[in-house]
Structure formats: structure tokens, C-alpha cells
């Protein structure tokens, strides 16, 4: 830690920066925890999917306070979350109903509270499609206005999806697991899932392969998924073997020292899993590298190594593991997870190669998802923003402080925030979520 950084974090430095307007960032609620205050449930146009899903989650709900009069009414005390079922909202005047629900709720929402809106994917007449898009604008703006670590989420739910399809998603969003997911929108399709409650250990007895597991986000993924019951196959390059072994032993998994760019990498993963008499429920393609340079200084070698490790290698591995003939491959009903990046979605100076690979991952999951739907294999990606790791810890202090505050939560995310989102996507009951890229970025100011 440099002298400037030490001074900044000293009591005096904190007092000075607070006076200058730099507030101490809010402490986020994390893990499998629910909001402290009551969960308020409302419906616009009579949709009942939210209320049926809340019942499945086993959480009590309360009636909303609606802003109808001259003076804005209040809740009187903090509320934990507002869940609005807007699945029947198709008219502009129904947006006013949403405003009337949001105004008192945003004022009363607790720290790390949640505003969740359920809507339908854009469909129907011109007005209905305009309204669908309007909800996205509202969601993004509410995310930016909320304070104290509270977040906003818009879930687009397919018309024939039932509570069984939505339970893992709504559970994830309301719980602390989604701490660093803010201002995001994603789709939940109908997958005809049984009406089971939220599982405490959804990955119990399932084999999950995590590449790049020796440290940072990969190690956090291994730990979080093991907490959820997964048997972890932890993979990293042979020179990282010592840290890899420590992670594998900590989570009671196995370590496989393997360079994912090796031609036989897919087969070696499969034979490791097959040897143990298992098949793969999910693979998390977390391994990645950066070789940052401005484009004018980027040569073919820097270009190739990043695309090879971050994109081409996982495609080769997927091909082997998705072959139903491969012993130790991915089972039907399995999960493939890629790691994109806000750098890929928004572009980032000095990272053309990295942005290419990470935007490529986003394109890959969108392409794979429909092709694997028949085997009930879902394919999704998470796109981390600024996450506090050893890697980002090496960014010069001032630059780092700017990066970590440039989002609606005014702080960097933790590796476990990325891991929790991956755990949600791996959950067998998240069957209706596929082809999605979920940003774990605290609603980063860049990256749409």
C-alpha cells in the first residue's frame, strides 16, 4: 500500500474525504439472507405470478402504500423490498401505477433493500412494446437513484412461465447473493419446473468444473459452489498447482493441473470426471488472461494468446464435453457458464484483445443456448465489473479508487458476488434462464 493510499484510508483521510463529498460506501447484505424489513407485493393489471412465486418462496408479503393523493404517503418504517408484478402492464397509463408504487417504496427502502419488477418480454402492439422498453428505463434509473446498497432489477418472464420457473431467480434477487447485481434486466423462460421451494444446497452431489480456480474469482466460485453442495473439480495451469491444491482441499474437491489451451484439455477433464464415476452438471469457464496494450501497440502474439485462453479454449473444451458419447461429459440438464466482462460489453481502452474475447463469450452463450435447449442444457455468462481481487489490487491507487466508485453502489464487488450469480445460474431450478449475460457490476456507469 502506497503512502497516498495509507493516508486516504487513515481516520484523518477518511474524515477529509467525507467532507469533500466522498462518502464511505454502503456495506452490502450478502449470502443467503433475506431483507430485514417486510417484502411489499403489488400488481399492476392483476398479474399474480409474483404472488404465487412469493408463496413458493415461503416469504410473507405486505400490501403496498400507493401515492394517490396530494401529499406523498409514507410507510412509516423501512421496508425490505418491493416486488411489483407488471406482467399485465401494456399501456402507458399503467406506468403511472408503477410510479405511484415506487415513490413511497424508494423513500422507505432499507439498506441493501430490493426493488424488483416482473414484466413480459416486448410483444404485442406498438404501445405494449414501447411500455416494455419504458420499464427498462425506469429500472435503470431507479437503480441509480437508490442509496445504501439497495438495488433494482427487472425480470422479463415468458408468458407461460410458472412460479417453479421463477423461484430460483426471485430468490436470488431478493437474497444477499445478488448484492452487486444492480440495474440489470434478464429473461426467464418457461421450463415447466416443478413447484419446489428454494433449495438451501441446490448443487448437492453435483459435479462442477471450475477453470482458473487457484485464486481470485475462481477460488471464490469454488468456495461458494461447494457451500451450495457441489463436488468441485478445480482446474488451473500446473505452475499454479500449490494454490490450486489448497483451494481443492478447502472445498473437499479435486485438483486437476491442466493448461486449458492444451489440445487434449477437454478429454483430460472428461477422463478425470469419468474416473470418479461422475458426469458434469456444470462447467464454469473462469480461466482468463489479460495482455493489455493500446491497439497501436498490440501485436499478433498479444492478440492471439488472449483470444486463445479466453475464448477458443473453452469452445474446444465445450465441444468435447457436450458430445453425449464422452464419458465424464456434461449431462443433459447441465449448465455451461462463461465469464464475459463489462470491458467486453462497453469496450475499454487498452483492451481490444480482451474486449474481443469477452464480448465473444457473450456472443457464444447467445448462440449456444437455443442449440442446446433440446437437451435442457442452459448456457449463460456473467459479466463482472470492478471486482476486488489481487489482479485489480495492482491497479494504481487513484485509478483504482475511481474505478471502484464508478457504479451505483460506489464500491468494488467481491469475488463471491460473481460466484453467487454463477451459483444461481447453476441451480437446477434455474432451467428457464438461458442465453443470458448477467452483469455483476453494481450498475457500472459504463457498459450499458
Amino acid at each position: 500500500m502506497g503512502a497516498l493510499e495509507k493516508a486516504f484510508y487513515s481516520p484523518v483521510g477518511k474524515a477529509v474525504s467525507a467532507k469533500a463529498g466522498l462518502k464511505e460506501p454502503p456495506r452490502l447484505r450478502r449470502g443467503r439472507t433475506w431483507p430485514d424489513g417486510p417484502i411489499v407485493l403489488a400488481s399492476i393489471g392483476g398479474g399474480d405470478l409474483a404472488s404465487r412465486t412469493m408463496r413458493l418462496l415461503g416469504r410473507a408479503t405486505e400490501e403496498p402504500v400507493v401515492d394517490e393523493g396530494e401529499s406523498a404517503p409514507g410507510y412509516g418504517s423501512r421496508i425490505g423490498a418491493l416486488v411489483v408484478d407488471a406482467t399485465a402492464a401494456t399501456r402507458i397509463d399503467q406506468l403511472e401505477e408503477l410510479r405511484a408504487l415506487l415513490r413511497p417504496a424508494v423513500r422507505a427502502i432499507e439498506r441493501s433493500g430490493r426493488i424488483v419488477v416482473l414484466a413480459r418480454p416486448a410483444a404485442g402492439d406498438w404501445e405494449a412494446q414501447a411500455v416494455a422498453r419504458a420499464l427498462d428505463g425506469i429500472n435503470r434509473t431507479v437503480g441509480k437513484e437508490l442509496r445504501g446498497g439497495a438495488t433494482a432489477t427487472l425480470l422479463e418472464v415468458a408468458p407461460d412461465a410458472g412460479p417453479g420457473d421463477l423461484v430460483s431467480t426471485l430468490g436470488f434477487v431478493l437474497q444477499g447473493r445478488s448484492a452487486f447485481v444492480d440495474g440489470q434486466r434478464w429473461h426467464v423462460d418457461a421450463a415447466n419446473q416443478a413447484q419446489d421451494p428454494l433449495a438451501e444446497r441446490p448443487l448437492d452431489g453435483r459435479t462442477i468444473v471450475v477453470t482458473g480456480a487457484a485464486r481470485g474469482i475462481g477460488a471464490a466460485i469454488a468456495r461458494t459452489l461447494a457451500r451450495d453442495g457441489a463436488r468441485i473439480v478445480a482446474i488451473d495451469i500446473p505452475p499454479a498447482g500449490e494454490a490450486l491444491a489448497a483451494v481443492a482441499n478447502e472445498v473437499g474437491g479435486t485438483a486437476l493441473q491442466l493448461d486449458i489451451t492444451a489440445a487434449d484439455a477437454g478429454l483430460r477433464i472428461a477422463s478425470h470426471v469419468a474416473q470418479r464415476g461422475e458426469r458434469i452438471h456444470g462447467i464454469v469457464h473462469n480461466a482468463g488472461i489479460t495482455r493489455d496494450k493500446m491497439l497501436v501497440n498490440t501485436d499478433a502474439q498479444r492478440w492471439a494468446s488472449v483470444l486463445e485462453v479466453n475464448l477458443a479454449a473453452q469452445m474446444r473444451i465445450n465441444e468435447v464435453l457436450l458430445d453425449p458419447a464422452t464419458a465424464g461429459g456434461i449431462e443433459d440438464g447441465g449448465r455451461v457458464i462463461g465469464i464475459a466482462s463489462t470491458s467486453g460489453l462497453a469496450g475499454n481502452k487498452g483492451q481490444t484483445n480482451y474486449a474481443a474475447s469477452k464480448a465473444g463469450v457473450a456472443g457464444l452463450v447467445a448462440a449456444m443456448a437455443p442449440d442446446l435447449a433440446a437437451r435442457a442444457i442452459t448456457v449463460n455468462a456473467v459479466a463482472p465489473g470492478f471486482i476486488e481481487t489481487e489482479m485489480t489490487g495492482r491497479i494504481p491507487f487513484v485509478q483504482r479508487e475511481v474505478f471502484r466508485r464508478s457504479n451505483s453502489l460506489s464500491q468494488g464487488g467481491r469475488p463471491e458476488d460473481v460466484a453467487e450469480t454463477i451459483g444461481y445460474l447453476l441451480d437446477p431450478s434455474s432451467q428457464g434462464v438461458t442465453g443470458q449475460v448477467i452483469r455483476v457490476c453494481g450498475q457500472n456507469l459504463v457498459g450499458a
Partner: protein
Amino acid sequence: MTHNAVVVGGNRTPFAKAGGPFAQASNHDLLTAALDGLVARFGLAGERIGEVAAGAVLKHPKDFNLTREAVLSSALSPATPACDLQQACGTGLETTIYIANKIRLGQIESGIAGGVDSTSDAPITVSDPLRRTLLKANSARSAMDRIKPFASVRPSHLKPQAPSVTEPRTGLSMGEHQALTTERWGISREEQDELAAASHHHLAAAWDDGFFDDLVTPYLRVAGDAILRADTSVEKLAKLRPAFGGEHGTMTAGNSTALSDGAATALLASEEWAAAHHMPVLAKVVDAEVAAVDHPGGDDLLLGPVAAAGRMLERQGLTLDDFDLIEIHEAFASTVLTTLKAWDDEDYCRGLGLDGKLGTIDRARLNVTGSSLAVGHPFAATGARIVPTLAKLLHQRGAGSKGLISMCAAGGQGVVAILEAV
């Protein structure tokens, strides 16, 4: 009831020169690291293993329970029992035999054999006169009596005693002994340097192939064997000055093993346990033998394995031709070369009480992924390095492939074993 004892796999730290990157690591640290890598490879965290047997040649008195303490520091279940064994440079093979025998007898279903040595962590002791003085002072009753014994301490008594690898009965170091053997058997400098160069080249090729990806776990940021010189050659080795056998000696630092730090482990199990736990099965332990020669009476100190191998092969009804691979521990290049000569010497073998000579071997089957000259030789670890390496090589060649391990050890002893791919 008897069982097959099979080698499931292994794990070791990279080996490095004494005083090198592992200089600050103790035997305990090294052995724990090797165990933890093995646990991670086979998913044994929290598992109770039947028994762990390991040892070290150079050991601090405080490490009287070295292996058990390393088990407690490792990710294995603390209910895993352990014991220390020591058979000089043969320790890592002797622990394998001990564990395999228990498995074959059904006393345990799984076990870990290992060995560790750190010549950087060698026990430094005090001289005998100083030790007597300290004991006397310690048992004194008054303060005056406590001080008095120190009056007899002389400066020479204060010199710490570093351990040495000299033979207590001959006063000769192992290298000096081997120099006598080298001359007696007429082993040339060129042959020794060729063998040393081949060891380095074979080891380098194996690393390049990724052969050690599932046999070695990096330690203290060292990812590969640090003694390995991939670019060495007979020409380069020929330039080194003799280290043993006087100025006309043929043994150099290049064709003798370096003092090394490292630890190695091998996971063994009954076939039933391996199947029930979905573990790979590489090779079974077929047989083993230990023999000794009368080196104070003039025998070659490091040729103990000749009688051991001869007796074991006769018992098994096997000849050297039956082996697909042969591992002869490279204490010195000339140890390997004299062992090969002795195996093919009718008179010498009959003199050991064998029916006749063992014969010659195809050198293409010898130490195919390198051995101690290139890898290094942390004394007690070497046997536990060779066992999983050979087991993997045999497994790659297919079921029924046989391998012979021959290791010389201090005190004129030799430890040998046969593995057969399953």
C-alpha cells in the same frame, strides 16, 4: 485373506538443490506440502487413510513423530495414523513395501508411503563434551553447581556438529566408497557422463510432455525440478573436475547426485478400495526384497541391490528380460553402471549365492524419464518419487507390463521391488 496392493498415484514437491529455494522449509513443511498435493489430486480432504508411513534420513530430534505431525498439518482426517520409518536412501521404497504389505494382509485398505529430506534443514548438534556439560549443569541443585561445569568447556567443544553421510564403520563418505567401486569395476568417465546427460535429457523431455502434471505439485513458487539442466551435454559434463577418487578420479559433481531438498508420496490401496472410491489403478506391487553386503569387510558399499534383485527374481521365476522398464536409483552414475555390470557378472552373482548372473538389459528401458542425477535426491524421498513415476509409465504401456526398481542405501544395503501394470 490377501489382497492386491496397487499404486493409485503419487505426488511430490519439485526437488531443488540444498540451500536453494526450499532452504527455509523444514522436513515437516515439505512433507505436508507433498501430502496436501496428493490429497487435492485424489479428493481425499477429510478422509481417513489406513496409515501413512514416511521418514527422513536427516531428522531433528524434535521431529520424532515427523509423519504423524505432517498428517495433522495436512488436509487428511486427523484420525489418520502415521509412523516414521527409515532405511537410509531406500526409505521411500521401504515405506512403500511396508504399506503394500499391510494392504496385502488386509490390515489396512489404503495407505500413503512417503519420504522427505531437507539438507537445508539438517539437524545441527552440539559436541559430546558440551552435551555432557549441559546435562551436568541441568541436574545441578544450586546456582553455583550449575555454573561450575562450564569451566571445563573448551572453544573446540562449541563447534556445532553438522551431520555427515560418512559410513560409521569405515569413516569413508559415500562418494569415497563409490570411487573405490568405480575403479574396481573399471567404469570410465565417458560412460558416467553419458548416463548423467541422458538422465537430464530424459527428465527434460518428460517435463515438456506434461508427464509430471499429475505427479508433481509446485511448492514455494518452484514449479519444476530445479536441479534439471536441460541443455547439459557430455561435452559440458566432461569439463568438470573430479569430486571423488583423487585427481584422476572419474566421479564429478555432474555425474554424482547433488544434496537436495524435497518430499514425495505415493497413494496405495487394495484394488477393492480403489474401485469403491473410484480411484485410478496404475500398477500392483508384486514383490520386494532388501539385501546387505559386508562393506566393512571390503564389499562394494552400494551394490547391495544386486543380491536383493537376484534373490527376488529367482523367487518370482523372472529374468531381466521380463521387465519392460527398469529404474535404478542414480546415487552416482557409476552406481548404475556397476550395478548393470554386476548383474551380468557370473562370478559376482554366484558369489552372492545366486544361481548365476542376471544378464544384461536394453538401456532404452532404463530410467526413461530421468532419475536422481537430474531430478535430485532428497534421500528418503527418492523411493516415493520412483514408485508413482514407474507405475504411471507401466500403466501407459498396458496391463501386465512389469517394472523393476533398484535402490542402493547406506550401510551396504539395497532395496528392490517389482511393479506390474494392472
